[in-house]
Structure formats: C-alpha cells, structure tokens
C-alpha cells in the first residue's frame, strides 16, 4: 500500500472511532502497527493516528471494565434497576 492510502485509511478509522467504536480503533492499531514497524520511513501523522487509536481503545476498555465491575457488584443493591438486566436472574 502506498503511504497515501495508509494515511487516509488510518485517518478515517481514527475519526470513525469517535462514534462509540473502540473496536474500530483497535482494528486500526492492529492493521497498521506491523506496517509501521516494518516501514520506518512513514509520515509522522500515521504514527500519530495509530498511537492515539490504541490509546483511545484502551481508555474505552478501562471505562467499560469499570462500568461492568460497578454494575456486577452493585446490581443486587439496585433492586429497582432491573431494567438494566437482560436476563432473569433466578435469585432475584
């Protein structure tokens, strides 16, 4: 791939990930990180996009993990919040 293409794809994936798509950021990183390793002469912008995609994806992962932990440990306390539940938990 030419550098131009890589730049444009990376850029689009970077901006696309802002719509609640951390997986897209991760894919961006997965896609272009090996390339960056093997082709040292690429433009700085690509590095910027790839690096910050990865950082964004990890931030999302951390936030999601925090939310899940909060939810799982506190769901019994929030009895009325059964709306959030998907499944019928037999133990109430």
């Amino acid at each position, binding site marked *: 791939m030419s550098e131009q293409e890589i730049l444009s794809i990376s850029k689009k994936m970077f901006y696309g990930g802002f719509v*609640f798509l951390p997986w897209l950021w991760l894919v961006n990183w997965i896609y272009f990180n090996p390339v960056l390793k093997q082709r040292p002469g690429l433009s700085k912008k690509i590095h910027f996009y790839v690096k910050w995609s990865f950082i964004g994806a990890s931030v999302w992962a951390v936030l999601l993990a925090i939310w899940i932990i909060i939810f799982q440990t506190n769901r019994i306390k929030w009895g009325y919040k059964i709306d959030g539940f998907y499944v019928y938990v037999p133990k109430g």
Partner: protein
Amino acid sequence: MNNNENRNNNNNNNNNIYSNQNEASTSTSEEDPKLKQELDEYIRNQKELLSSPMDDISQEEYSKILKEYRALFNLYRQKQITPEQKITLNEHHQILVKYQYQHLNPEQQQNYLLQQREQAKIRKIKEQQQKKKDMYDNLRYYAKEISSIIRPVILCICLSILWVKLTRQVDTSLITSTDIDIIGGSNSSGNQDGDEAEGFNFKGLLNSFLNAGLIIGNIVIATFVILLLFKFNCSKVLYGLFMFTVFMLIGIFGYNLLSTLIYIYNIPMDWITLIIFMFNLSIVGVIVIFWKGPSKIQQGYLILMSSLMAFSLTGLADWTTWILLALLACWDLIAVLCPFGPLKMLVEHSDNNKQMIPQALIYSTMIWMMAKDVRINIDGNSKNKDDGEIYELNELKQVSSIQIDESEASSQGSTQELIDSNQRNSYKEDYKINIKDNTIREVNEDDQQEEKISYNKQKAKQDDDDDDIDNDDTSEKQSLTNRKNSIKHNSEQQDGIREEEESNKDEGEDEGLKLGLGDFVFYSVLIARAAMHDWITTFACAIAVLFGLTVTIFLLSIYQKALPALPISIVFGIIFYVISSFMLGSLMEYLTRIPVVENNMKNYSDLKLDYNNGCSFVYL
C-alpha cells in the same frame, strides 16, 4: 563455376539445415501406433508441402533470400525479432527448404524426411512428458491448496458446533457432571411447519418439503436478481444491498445467539454493555469486510457470519433442513454446471468484464478458478501472501466469479501488502474466499502474481491475485429464520463468496481456490444439525463433509473449471448422518452398557453411563 558454387552453397545450406535438425535419435522403443500415425501424417504433409511446385528462383534471388534468412535468424536467436519479421523469416525458411528439397535426389529426400520424422517424434514425446509433469505439478499444487482451504472450513464448522452445543438446553436430571459443554436438550424453536415429522408422518413430511421448497425458491430468485444487478452494473445497489445484509446478519443473528446464551447461562448483562458490544461488532464487521482491514479479521468475520447463519438455520424443522440441503445440492449442480445456470453466467460475466465481485460475497478461499493461472494463497508465511480466507457474507450469496481489477484490489491491501509495496514484492498471495453456496470454482489467473490460496475475503482483502481478477461471486442471500419469534429474514443466499485476498494476508488473488461463502454456510448447517444429537453423529458428519470437500477439490484439479462444492459433501453428510444417528448411537450405548446398581449410587461414586449424550460417556 557459379553453378558449382551455388550447388555447394545449396549443399552447405542443406547440410546446415540438416545439421540443425539432425538429432542422433534413433527410435529406441517401438512407437506406439497413435504416435506413429501422427508422425506419418506429419511426414506426409511435409512431403506434400515440399514437393509442391514452386517457381524457380535464380541464384541471386536465392542468395539474397538466404542472406535475409540468416539475418532474421540471428535476430530470432537474440529474441529481438518482431512479429512481422517472424513471418518473413518463416516464409524465407519455407522457400529455402523447398528449393533445396526439390534439388535433392530421391535418396536424399528420403533421408531428409526420415530426419524430420525423428525430430517430430522427439518433440512429441517431450510434449507428452511435459504434460504429465504439468499434471503432477498441478495435483501437487492442489494438494497444497487443500490444506489452506480446509482450515477456514474447519474453523467455521467448529464454531457452528460450539454454538449448537452451547445452546442445547440442559437435561439436568441425568447429568451429574458436566465435563463437556454439552447441554443436553433441544433448543429447536418452532418451525414453520408446525410439527416435527418423526418417522413417516406424511403430512408433516409434505409440509417440510413445501417449506424447503419455499426457501429454495427464494434462493433461486435471489440468485437471479443478483445476477441481473451484476450484469447491469448497478454496483451501488449491489454494494448497498450486501452491506445492509451483512450488517443485519451480524447484528440480528449475533444478537440472537448472544441473548440465547445469556438466557441459558443466567448471565447478568446490562443493556449498555450489550448494545455497545453488538454495535461495535456489526459496524466494524461491515467496515472490515467491505472496505479495508486486516485480512485475518476479515476472514474471522466471514467465518463468524457463516457460523451464525448456520446456527440460525438450525431453527428450522428437522426434515425441512434435510430436504433443503438435498434440494440445494441439486440446485448447486444445476446452477453451476448447466449452461443457463446463473452462477455460471455470473462467473463468466465477471471474468469477461473483469469486474470485481463484491468481496462480501466471496470468501477468498477461492475454489474459483476461472483462468489458467491458479493462484494459491497460502498462509502468509509459506508464500508471500498469507492465505486470507475471506469469508463473505454469511448470507448465502451467489457469487459470481469476478475479476478484480487491480486498482480495486490494491485498494484492499492487507498489511503484508503494505509492507510489500514498500519492498516491491510481488503480491504472492491473494486469496479470495469465495463463498458461494454451491460453487467451487477454479480461478486461474494469468497474473504474474504468485499463487495464492484463494481465500477470498471480502473486500477487505485485496486481491493481489491477479492482476487480477477478483472473482466475486455475488450470491444471493437468503436467510430464512424460523425462530419461534417467526421473524423471517430474507437474505440472499450466497452462492459463493469469493474473497480475494491479496498479499500475504488474506487477500489473495484470484488465483487460488475460491470457495463460495454459501458453501461454508451449508456445510455448517449440515453439521450443526448433526450436532444437535450426539457427538458421534457430529464427528461422523464433519468428517464426511470434509471428505466431500477434498474430493471436490481433487475433481477440480482434474477438470479445471468451476465446480459445485455442495453436492458431494452433502450426499456424504446425509448418508453418514442417517447411519450415525440411527445406528451408531445405539450401538455404542449397547456395547458400553454397564448395569447400574441404583441403590448404591448415592453412597459411592460409580461408573455411570449416560447415554443421553450419545457417546456413552462415563461419569464418575
């Protein structure tokens, strides 16, 4: 004096010509009659040609022609000859030979003819040996490709088995320990038919038949629609359709599976996480499949889609599924092999026009071999390209072979391609996965690119293949879900999905085997259906299907044209399913039955055979 010189010249020339052709070949073995016949005919033609009357040419003309001939011949030796010059060269050669021949006495003529014969014989024998060698090379090539094609098929099959086994409802009364994630029970949702036809319930059977016929009819219509769309180059409509289909497939079927799993395992899941997860999965899936993305992920998505599709189709009634599979096998045969078959036309159309078939449709394991070159994309390591299997839409789409134009292919570069482009490596691997329901085609491309396993992945992979011709099969998608919710989705059935995968990763060039995505789905459907019983049936059917696939690829190597991938596998699968489910389970159970002492069961752990799981597993 002049005459003598000329005569000498002639003789020299004769000698030159003779020596050129003089091979010290004596017929070592008897010539087999066919070869003899060919040679005799050849010599007869030569004789006629040489004896045909020609104008006498004077000495000057002769020497002039000779000089020109020599000059041109030198050019020819140096490979710098133009076509027109070649023609002149041939003409001169003919004139010279004729002239010389006619000036020989009959004995020399005879000798000359004999020499010609010997040479022709040697040539022909060499040709035959070369052909044999080519055939062996071809077979070896296919043997290599088989492994790369089977890998994604196996993966898809395993995933489907996993989904089925996970969602079978547990029959908790009999199982004391669950060492396997088999949850006994049945999860079959309501069928359109109503009752499951057990035994020979004719009304139910007819109902199933009608249902299956309905589905097949949908598939046929969808195939033709896609073909039409493809022919009229409404690529926007096609792409939009496929993108929508993929999105819906992943979203709805994925949601289905997830919600079933959550329900069965009592996982407390909040809506937020679930929605974010599904949203990400589907949208990134569409992006990666139809645009660019790492080939492994593309392939992963295609495999995922195929298995989701197969899992959803297990919601059909029992008999309906089997009848559907049988009808599909017939339809596949018709669609691919008959001259008016839509898939065949699609393939030809794409070949002729060098259009690309949407990646979504093709899994780049192309067993589409259209052209002469067979490119095999093998996993990136072995060849420059990785074998990317491109799995295309789960939906059954009938994909026609499509040729990829290079620009398009290049647009879907895989990482390797990225790397390669810098290093100016040729794309070795393109594999496209053609997911076609029913077709296996061989696509040979005359591209410079090396063989790739054609796992065609959906667009995500660039097909290096070829210079490529990406064969995309557009398959019609058709999915019919007969869930209890009775939501019917009509998706197109993908006949074949070819994905072209370029460069090392998934994208392969058209070369290589391309297997339609629909084939993936229906193999998985058959095996998922078998997986609803016991493990023996599951494995027997899996092996049968894989065996059928191998046989089909072998046939492909012999016939060198697009073949339907479904029929053989389905036939074997059905046979083994019938044998296993009716006989093997009971046999195993009988052979391993140990009388159980009921009273003492609670006091000590004993060996207990649970035949419900069908394999006489021993529980402690």
